[in-house]
């Protein structure tokens, strides 16, 4: 059952598996706020709402005038002032990743910061700052060269993102329009092996251009509504998987009182919510053992603010989003990144009644690849999702009203 996997030397079964650690995780409340912005890909620092001074590390009051602080997007430029290569540490995570380069960077935004330093940067260089999430899920400043090679070549950078190249990926419901698009995008991104889960009762013959016919792709039976099917699928993958992309969803219109479609709602919950539980339970130990494990869940942006026309589906997505956050919390200690990729209506059969703009499955699939490459925890694809996320972040109560006014 190993067709579609690149060759790897077999590990000596008597050696102990490598235990994974994460960087020190204790943070202040202000730093958690910075991490919440980093999760969305924002490059933010605090600025004073009175005097405008920009400050770092995160504080609770302005050190220039004792005014209040707010988070704001900042210029990403910086100049490197000093550098060091750490060769010894008492921390288990960094011990496993020595030597480790850090530097002192004068940010164009004002403050000076200790930063992770890309291997091509030296003192005096200009740098482009990235606000990343470290393996423990906390915000971290990473200085990249302004231009140059793909940062993926730097092993230190790879600790902050989820490489897809050469990795083994499981895609649930790989037989839907969205699932096929994700499979196609993973193949294009150089995934080493892609397992396309199919929940259909029988495996149909594939069209010539079906991405599941690509080299390195294998169809596997996987029905998220059946715990046994999930367990059996995982057992039959013939080796570890690095990334799981959960595309499963059951979308039907329906309200709460009118046209509730109880069986449809139940299925949306069983597949979307309980399915996530069944999947997470089965894959968590495998992902936890991988050097850069990730779990990607594709969610409707209506997980944040429900759409009354799709009340049951929205409820399922909200429940799923809630579970995903708990799962993220559980996986932090193992350094597994748990990503939510949000979109509005997808341009597929499920959303025929939805007005434009709808997100093409291929675009959403590319969003999954982007989120992994950038190490995001939350990523919005398309204008609808971005707009709703922005409004929700700014004012959730008003957004809920606007959504269902």
């Amino acid at each position: 059952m190993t067709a579609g996997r690149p060759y790897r030397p077999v590990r000596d079964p008597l050696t102990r598996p490598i235990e994974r650690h994460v960087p020190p995780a204790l943070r202040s409340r202000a730093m958690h706020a910075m991490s919440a912005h980093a999760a969305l890909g924002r490059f933010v620092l605090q600025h004073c709402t009175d005097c405008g001074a920009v400050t770092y590390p995160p504080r609770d009051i302005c050190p220039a005038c004792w005014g209040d602080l707010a988070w704001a997007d900042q210029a990403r430029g910086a100049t490197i002032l000093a550098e060091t290569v750490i060769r010894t540490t008492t921390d288990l995570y960094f011990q496993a990743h020595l030597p480790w380069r850090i530097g002192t960077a004068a940010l164009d935004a004002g403050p000076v910061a200790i930063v992770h330093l890309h291997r091509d940067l030296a003192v005096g260089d200009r740098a482009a700052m990235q606000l990343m999430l470290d393996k423990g899920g906390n915000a971290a400043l990473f200085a990249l060269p302004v231009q140059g090679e793909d940062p993926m070549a730097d092993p230190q950078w790879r600790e902050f993102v989820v490489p897809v190249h050469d990795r083994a990926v499981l895609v649930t419901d790989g037989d839907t329009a969205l699932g096929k698009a994700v499979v196609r995008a993973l193949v294009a991104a150089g995934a080493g092996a892609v397992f396309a889960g199919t929940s259909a009762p029988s495996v149909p013959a594939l069209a010539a251009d079906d991405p599941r016919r690509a080299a390195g792709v294998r169809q596997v039976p996987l029905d998220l509504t059946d715990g046994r099917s999930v367990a059996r699928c995982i057992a039959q993958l013939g080796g570890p998987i690095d990334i799981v992309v959960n595309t499963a969803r059951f979308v039907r219109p329906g309200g709460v009182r009118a046209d509730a479609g109880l069986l449809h709602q139940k299925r949306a919950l069983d597949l979307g919510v309980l399915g996530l539980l069944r999947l997470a339970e089965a894959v968590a130990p495998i992902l936890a053992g991988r050097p850069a494990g990730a779990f990607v869940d594709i969610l409707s942006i209506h997980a944040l603010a429900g759409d009354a026309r799709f009340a049951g589906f929205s409820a399922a997505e909200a429940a799923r989003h809630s579970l995903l956050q708990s799962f993220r919390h559980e996986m932090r200690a193992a350094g597994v990144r748990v990503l939510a990729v949000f979109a509005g209506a997808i341009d597929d059969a499920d959303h025929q009644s939805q007005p434009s703009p709808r997100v093409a499955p291929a675009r959403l699939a590319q969003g999954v690849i982007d989120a992994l490459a950038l190490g995001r925890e939350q990523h919005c694809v398309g204008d609808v999702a971005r707009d709703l996320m922005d409004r929700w972040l700014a004012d959730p109560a008003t957004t809920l009203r606007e959504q269902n006014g």
Partner: protein
Amino acid sequence: MRASVPYDGVVVCAPVTVPYQRFSDRSAHWWAGKAMRALADATGLRPGDVDGFCFASFTSVPDSAVGMIQHLGLAPRWLDHLPTGGASGIMALRRAARAVQCGDAEIVACVAADTNHIDSFRQGLAGFSRFSRDAVYPYGFGGPNATFALITDAYMRRNGVTREDFGRLCVAQRRNAQSNPCALQRRPLTLDAYLAARPIADPVHLYDCVMPCAGAEAFLVTTPEVAARYGLPVARVLATIERHNAFAGDPVQWRGGWAMDVDALWQGAGIAPGDVDTVQVYDDYPVIVAMQLEDLGFCGKGEIGAFLRATRFEIDGDLPLNTNGGQLSAGQAGAAGGFQNVTEGLRQVLGCPLGAQVPEARRALLSGFGLVNYDRGVCTGAAVIERAA
């Protein structure tokens, strides 16, 4: 700025050191108690005689000075707790001196004590400060080595200082340590060995780093009359300075708070840098030694490289520096590391050093530096003391 009032009617005396141990299964409380016992043995004081207590420690948690006085059976009428680490010795001296001068206390025991369990260094690091937790430890967790590596890197580039220059300092301090039976590292160190040592966080190498250990230091601040009653040799405090979070706008620390107040120090003392017989400066890393020599006026700004190359820092040299070996050779006993500049300077001017005596030492410059809250040391202080005639 208003000038400081002279320290009339105040003396400092009875320096004691509880010999350091690399690791100890004792608590900070035990080490503090042993320091009090050493004070009692050296002076004849009993617990009831001490009416002022000033305490510094990183490992006494959850106890502060409050828990410590009950633990030690003291009933002082003046109490202070100093969380300022490497600057705590100078600050204890300053505060105790004013308390005695003003009559708030008559006999102040200044005590710093820290233990070092097998894992306490790592655990101490993890919870050090909010900025460190948020914005330093997650960056490679190199501890102070990494932070000072960045400071050293920038300092070397700025001033043209080389590793050889720092090496001369470290080699001299090791030579000084050889006469100190309490120093943890007394094997001779050559410049070649210094240069060949393994890198810890470039450009900081092994012999640029102190060895954490357990230990305690203490001294008394009292009136000349009380000291005379107990028959104790004493020193006077000529002048002191203290500054925190100075030059916050410097992108990388290349100077400390001393540079802000250096003129006040020497004017208050009524002497010049060349008039002191020995210098005891905080030496967590050689770059900080260099910075203090610069900022306290022993050489011009930017001339530190040439000064390091031209000066002999041995006990019998041009500028006897850290004559007990400093923390780099004697060991760094937590907050007690911020007291050994005071106790060793006091011993040299009182003629009772742990090791070799600086010939005819009468005046000493003491300097402290403490607490890397984020990317630099925040607390600085200095004092000039002189043996009372």
